[in-house]
């Protein structure tokens, strides 16, 4: 373990013990003797918690069983656990988009009552310290099969760590081939053509292409925003899709041209595994995806790409300097069927505390930490500004200002966005952009009605 990490860990232990002792009698041992199961994706974010689980058990007397599964598998299993009302899992890892589809059915426990209850929440917890874009995105009310987007609504999950979408590029490859990092979508297409001409062995660009909404939530939704495109317009009964608008047609023509010029033949089957693989091995020169993939691969000794990946904001439309970045927030929530909700909440507030945020981040795992205070903590500033991370810290700060959840909150999110991903594949495969977008819009409108 690095000396810095050891010092941070020591400070955090003292801080946790201190806060436990000094928090005006906050009783960490209220649920002593209980046992809970925490389910999560196999991920460095899980690793950041597992590393210190014994401390939580010592502090509270609560035994935590960690049940971890890899990405796609985890979502399948989570759906079954929640939809069948199983009491097995108490704390679950989830994201906002899947939560839109399960909260109207009462499958997640509302948390505002717990957050606001001084007998259940450590006074040092400071919920307001999370980036407002993240907590706002986790706040809504539910009615029958509807999400009512309101800042005063219920809280359904607590941000654990999050990703914002950025352009990442291999500095060594672009420099060798004499290519400047692009800032607009047509510039990206031109850069790809230049890379292919200079070295056909290098894939210019990696981006997800699978027939699933996760392909949309990285590059397309972020870049589309700069073209003036949203997934939906209006609200309530007037909600309508905007995917067949003139702006959307323009965006899709540019995006399809970019994929055709930049992406590998395997694009339609590529998920984050392939995107990360391409960057870390140097098979790929650029990628638009979650920024922490670049961060993790830059860690000294983590991969051949260590120290070689730089960061830039997502691409924009050619006539608009304003970029936008979508977010994915890995969060902790409570299964509504859990029989140990009190102990589950204790675990969540410990895992998302200020101290755990900084510890996880300076261990190189909990990146990006969701608390604003973490980004002002000297240990994290020093760590994130180490030379191997290049411009990670500064780029995060400039992108974060324009980061928000770019999807429209609604029940049925997955169906419409999966359809968009399928349409994107068809257009890249040669379907007429205008006609295919009209079909997509019709499909979504049918579902809305």
């Amino acid at each position, binding site marked *: 373990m690095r000396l810095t990490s050891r010092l941070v860990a020591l400070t955090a232990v003292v801080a946790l013990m201190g806060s436990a002792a000094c928090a005006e009698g906050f009783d960490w041992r209220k649920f002593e003797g209980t046992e809970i199961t925490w389910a999560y994706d*196999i991920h460095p974010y899980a*690793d950041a918690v597992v590393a210190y689980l014994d401390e939580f058990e010592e502090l509270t007397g609560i035994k935590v069983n960690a049940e971890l*599964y890899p990405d796609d598998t985890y979502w399948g299993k989570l759906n079954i656990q929640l939809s069948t009302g199983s009491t*097995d899992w108490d704390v679950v890892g989830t994201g906002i988009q899947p939560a839109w589809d399960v909260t109207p059915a009462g499958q997640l426990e509302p948390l505002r009552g717990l957050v606001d209850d001084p007998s259940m929440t450590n006074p040092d917890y400071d919920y307001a310290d999370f980036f407002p874009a993240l907590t706002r995105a986790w706040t809504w009310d539910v009615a029958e099969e509807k999400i009512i987007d309101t800042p005063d609504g219920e809280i359904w999950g607590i941000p654990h760590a999050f990703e914002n979408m950025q352009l990442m590029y291999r500095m060594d490859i672009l420099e060798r081939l004499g290519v400047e990092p692009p800032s607009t979508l047509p510039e990206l297409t031109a850069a790809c053509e230049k890379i292919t001409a200079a070295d056909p062995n290098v894939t210019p660009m990696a981006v997800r292409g699978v027939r699933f909404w996760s392909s949309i939530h990285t590059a397309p939704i972020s870049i589309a925003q700069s073209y003036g495109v949203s997934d939906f317009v209006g609200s309530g009964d007037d909600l309508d899709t905007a995917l067949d608008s003139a702006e959307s047609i323009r965006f899709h023509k540019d995006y399809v041209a970019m994929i055709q010029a930049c992406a590998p033949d395997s694009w339609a089957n590529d998920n984050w595994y392939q995107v*990360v693989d391409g960057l870390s091995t140097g098979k790929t020169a650029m990628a638009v995806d979650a920024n922490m993939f670049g961060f993790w691969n830059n860690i000294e*000794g*983590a991969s051949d790409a260590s120290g070689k990946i730089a960061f830039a904001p997502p691409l924009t439309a050619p006539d608009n300097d304003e970029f936008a970045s979508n977010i994915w927030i890995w969060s902790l929530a409570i299964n509504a069927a859990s029989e140990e909700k009190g102990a589950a909440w204790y675990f969540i507030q410990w895992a998302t505390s200020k101290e755990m945020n900084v510890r996880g981040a300076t261990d190189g795992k909990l990146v990006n930490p969701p608390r604003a205070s973490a980004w002002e903590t000297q240990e994290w500033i020093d760590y994130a500004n180490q030379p191997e991370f290049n411009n990670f810290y500064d780029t995060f700060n400039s992108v974060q200002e324009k980061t928000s959840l770019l999807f429209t909150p609604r029940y049925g999110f997955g169906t419409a966005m999966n359809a968009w991903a399928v349409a994107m594949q068809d257009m890249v495969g040669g379907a007429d952009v205008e006609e295919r977008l009209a079909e997509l819009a019709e499909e979504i409108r049918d579902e809305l009605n």
Partner: protein
Amino acid sequence: MQNRRLASTMLNALVLLVVMVLAFPIIWIVMNSFKEAADINAYPPVFLFDPTLENYKVLFDLADAEATNYGTLKIEFFKPVISSVIISIGAVLLSVIAGVPAGYALARYEFRGKEDLAFFILSFRFAPVLLVIIPMFQFFQAVGLYDSYLGMIWVYQLVTLPMIIWLSRSYVEDIPLEMEEAAAICGAKRPRIILQVVLPLLRPGLVGASLLVFLLAWHNFALGLILTAKNTPVTVALLKLLNPGVSFYPVVSAGLVVSMIVPILLIMLGQRHLERGLTFGALK
């Protein structure tokens, strides 16, 4: 003569080509399991490298996790291998105990709806597991079979039992009825005929069939994924090696090699019977 030699040489060359194509992925995985991440990612691919046992150490949690950069998530690969052995062998044994009498009855007795019943049993193999997995999950939770070996052995009957019943039916039909009649003339009752005449004759075929269904059980993924938590089979444990924060290909390769050891050992031990199992009952 010369034509025959040429044909034989060409045939051998073709067999060699097929063997190379079939064996290459396995050889490649074995090589990767001894490589470091840099060698696995190398382009063009490297065939000569300094072998390391580090991936196997990580797999069995013998290495200093930080040194391998696999994080602090514990990988306990030994237990899933044992779980798979228990579940797969248990499932095969139960299927043989229940399936052979059923197969015998279908072969030797005439009763109304016999063929419909036989087809119904076989239809378990047609149903996609994902269709029944959610009710199965709820049922297992309700009766306390979730995450238990007993529950897994039971549910694996969906995979193993139809094959055993149909194969043993076919094997029994292959045994001349006259042999059983001769034993009956000598005064043997039905149970004795089955135990002392039919079963010894069925043995080679049954061993082969058991090996075949063992492989089906060993490779099953969906049932173990949904119906277990701690007692996961090796197929689920393999998937758990995928970790986006690390270069996981070397350790996944080591996991694949370990997961292949038990089936390969069994196939080597029972190769003779496996061939017999595949061809038993094929000729009347």
